[in-house]
């Protein structure tokens, strides 16, 4: 009950209406008090001044009144005057002293015969000398004393009564003591009235203003209070605008507007909060908030779906399966420096090793303190695998690029090589930055029909066949070019793939030679078959008609052609077989002589002069006499044939030259016969080629070259159509140690004309 009362009082005293009314009243009250006090003070001082003035006036009157009486020494009269004045006013006492301080007259006291002691009296101590009227208020303020000295006027010094000497200026003094009590009582009465009035005013104003506040302010405040509490709960919806024109109504309207704004903001805030919550929960990565003790304080839906609720656990235990903090922990770093950090980690998710990229960022509280760290983890295992595979493939392609057996170069717009492969380096060395035409062909300017240039223009693959001269040999190259483009499809460079096709070209040549060989051989066989057919017919005819001469002629034809086919087959076998020369010690001069002897009679028959330009004994050496004999025979036979078929009337001759020059054996067979066109002489040793119609097999020079090559030598020909030909054989000179071991070659019984 008591408590309730106190509570009510407290509530009341703390209410706005109480405070307003109390302080308004109090201000009025104090103002009135101060004003009254000031007024009373000045009233008091005025009254005292007035009293003193009157006292001085009265003392003057007394002085005048008593001056005659003094002189006449009518003491009684003076006493009466003093008493009359003394009882009329507020005077407490009136004393009249002579100049020696002897009290002569007093309203209360009996006159004294002895002078009073004024040594301590502030007004009367200089009674004899001070001629001025003076006053003093007693220390307790209850009385005021006025001293008015009685001066020696003319009468006094001259009158006969009791004449005062002229030297005595001051004869005595009238002292008046006036009581101030009544005055003060009046003033007190006034001030009491003022206090009562002020209190009444205070109460009136307090009540009035309290009532005003209660009536006009409180309801609005209550209303606002209710609205605010509703708003706080989010229930307040302002409906109609508040009526009224005073400040409270304005305030209410402002409040309504504010609450509308707040509602709207709150809704927006709610929506964005929901959105962020959804983002946080459904983000396709693990989002974990970790506190300073490395404990999980929150985690998003993705994390919880994978690892379950791990709130409160240490992060390294919760999802990394460790017993202590990780090395290089980005969370720790973020706690240390307040910056974002990143690391790549390997986690075990579903029992599988997973590559995870972890990023951390600081979370600050309202006071700017770093309290937590947000850890974002993205599983990049698939990406890693892909990256690994790409890397692997890159390596494979790199390997292919480097080791593919052709020259690969990448060239820019200015034909500078910007990359090349190992195969290229093997043959050309490091050439990055050099011009491709310089490196490949030793040219100073770009090649004609450059496929690289074409590819830069048409953005397509191009190719060209080229011949490079390297180390004195022709190399056949097929060059393919392909564009190298950037992401936008613009050509940045061109890849040039150069394949050495010399071997293929050689095989191609051999294949075509084989074709021609077969055609040539078919032709020979056809000729022989014709001969055989003819022989058979002639024998038939002879037998039918009984003509032995025909039978004999036919039989000769058959024998002759069988021989021819036998030679052909032997020749083919010789040409097609890989064999080592059958080296023997032999005298070179003897071998050449034997060949010349063999053709001596035929040359004579054909009217061709066979000139021997060599010594009978040249040098004993290691040669295959059988092979070399047939090779040389072919050349001499061909030379004689060339002379025979020449259409000029000149004397034809064949010169056989043989000598040892240093480490080489040189054998030359020259003629001034028909000669050959360039085309024929170029293909002479490779193609099975015959100009002798049915008489030639086309095998002769092929076999000759084979023999020379097997000896490690070379054969070449110089020829001009209509002027003749010179065949030159160069053989390495292989000396024998014992000259006496030189053997005679067996006579060679087949030729290849």
């Amino acid at each position, binding site marked *: 009950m008591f408590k309730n009362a106190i509570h009510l009082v407290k509530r009341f005293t703390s209410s706005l209406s109480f405070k307003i009314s109390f302080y308004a009243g109090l201000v009025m009250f104090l103002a009135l008090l101060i004003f009254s006090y000031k007024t009373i003070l000045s009233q008091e001082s005025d009254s005292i001044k007035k009293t003193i003035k009157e006292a001085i006036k009265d003392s003057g009157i007394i002085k005048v009144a008593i001056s005659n009486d003094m002189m006449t020494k009518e003491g009684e009269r003076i006493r009466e005057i003093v008493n009359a004045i003394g009882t009329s006013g507020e005077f407490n006492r009136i004393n009249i002293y002579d100049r020696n301080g002897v009290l002569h007259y007093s309203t209360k006291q009996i006159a004294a015969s002895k002078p009073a002691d004024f040594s301590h009296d502030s007004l009367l101590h200089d009674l004899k000398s001070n001629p001025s009227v003076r006053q003093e208020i007693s220390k307790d303020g209850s009385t005021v004393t006025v001293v008015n000295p009685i001066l020696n006027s003319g009468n006094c010094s001259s009158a006969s009564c009791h004449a005062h000497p002229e030297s005595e200026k001051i004869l005595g003094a009238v002292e008046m003591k006036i009581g101030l009590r009544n005055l003060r009582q009046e003033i007190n009465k006034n001030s009491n009235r003022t206090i009562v009035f002020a209190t009444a005013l205070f109460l009136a104003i307090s009540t009035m203003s309290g009532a005003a506040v209660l009536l006009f302010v409180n309801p609005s405040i209550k209303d606002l209070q209710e609205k605010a509490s509703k708003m706080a709960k989010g229930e307040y919806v302002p409906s109609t605008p508040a009526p009224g024109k005073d400040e409270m109504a304005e305030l209410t309207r402002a409040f309504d507007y504010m609450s509308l704004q707040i509602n709207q903001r709150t809704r927006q805030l709610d929506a964005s909060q929901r959105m962020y919550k959804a983002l946080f929960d459904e983000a396709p990565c693990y989002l974990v908030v970790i506190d300073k003790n490395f404990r999980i304080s929150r985690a998003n839906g993705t994390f919880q779906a994978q690892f379950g609720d791990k709130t409160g656990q240490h992060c390294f235990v919760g999802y990394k399966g460790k017993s202590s903090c990780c090395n290089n922990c980005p969370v720790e770093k973020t706690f240390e420096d307040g910056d974002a950090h990143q690391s790549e980690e390997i986690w075990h998710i579903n029992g599988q090793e997973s590559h995870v990229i972890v990023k951390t960022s600081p979370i600050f509280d309202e006071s700017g303190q770093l309290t937590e760290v947000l850890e974002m983890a993205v599983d990049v295992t698939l990406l890693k695998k892909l990256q690994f595979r790409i890397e692997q493939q890159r390596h494979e392609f790199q390997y292919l690029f480097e080791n593919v057996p052709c020259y690969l170069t990448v060239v820019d717009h200015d034909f500078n090589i910007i990359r090349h492969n190992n195969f290229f380096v093997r043959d050309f060395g490091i050439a990055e930055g050099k011009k491709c035409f310089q490196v490949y062909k030793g040219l100073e300017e770009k090649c004609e029909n450059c496929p690289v240039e074409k590819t830069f223009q048409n953005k397509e693959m191009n190719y060209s066949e080229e011949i490079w001269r390297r180390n004195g040999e022709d190399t056949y190259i097929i060059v393919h070019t392909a564009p190298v483009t950037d992401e936008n499809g613009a050509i940045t460079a061109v890849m040039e793939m150069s394949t050495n096709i010399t071997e293929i070209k050689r095989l191609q040549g051999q294949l075509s030679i084989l074709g021609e060989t077969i055609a040539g051989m078919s032709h020979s066989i056809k000729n022989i078959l014709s001969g055989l057919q003819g022989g058979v017919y002639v024998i038939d005819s002879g037998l039918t008609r009984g003509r032995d001469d025909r039978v004999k*002629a036919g039989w000769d034809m058959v024998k002759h052609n069988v021989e021819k086919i036998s030679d052909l087959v032997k020749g083919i076998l010789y040409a097609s077989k890989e064999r080592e020369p059958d080296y023997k010690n032999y005298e070179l001069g003897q071998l050449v002589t034997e060949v010349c002897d063999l053709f001596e009679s035929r040359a004579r028959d054909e009217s061709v002069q066979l000139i021997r330009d060599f010594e009978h004994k040249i040098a004993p050496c290691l040669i295959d006499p059988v092979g070399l004999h047939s090779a040389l025979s072919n050349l001499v036979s061909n030379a004689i044939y060339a002379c025979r*078929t020449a259409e000029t009337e000149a004397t034809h001759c064949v010169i056989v030259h043989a000598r040892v020059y240093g480490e080489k054996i040189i054998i030359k067979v020259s003629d001034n016969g028909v000669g050959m066109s360039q085309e024929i002489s170029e293909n002479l040793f490779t193609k099975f080629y015959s100009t002798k119609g049915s008489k030639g097999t086309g095998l002769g020079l092929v076999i000759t070259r084979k023999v020379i090559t097997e000896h490690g030598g070379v054969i070449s020909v110089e020829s001009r159509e209509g002027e003749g030909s010179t065949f030159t054989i160069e053989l390495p000179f292989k000396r024998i140690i014992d000259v006496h071991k030189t053997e005679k070659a067996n006579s060679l019984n087949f030729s290849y004309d």
Partner: protein
Amino acid sequence: MARKILVIDDEPDMVTFLSTLLEDNGYEILTAVDGDEGLHKVKTERPDLVSLDLLMPNKTGIKMFRELRKDPDISNIPVVMVTGFATDDAPNMDFKKWINERSIRPPEAYIEKPVDTVNLLNEIKRILG
């Protein structure tokens, strides 16, 4: 009176064979071993038909044929070309040239080695009428 045929071939076997074959079939035979001799005999003996080998020394068959066709005295004498070249090869090498040179009439017949005797005799019969 038997018709006169000139057999020109550098291969003696071929000459013997063709002479025997044509003699047996009632023709009178003349022979030559190269183009020069052949052309000479054409002019002197005036054969009714010439059998000519394509590839020969001392004027190849083609050369001799051209001269024969260019000489107005003898250009109308029919020629049977005998050769070891296959028919598909020969046109590439020579017939094209003949066609290009319009003044030259191609040979009346073309016989491949080995000679098909029946074919040869039929062709000669056809040419000589």
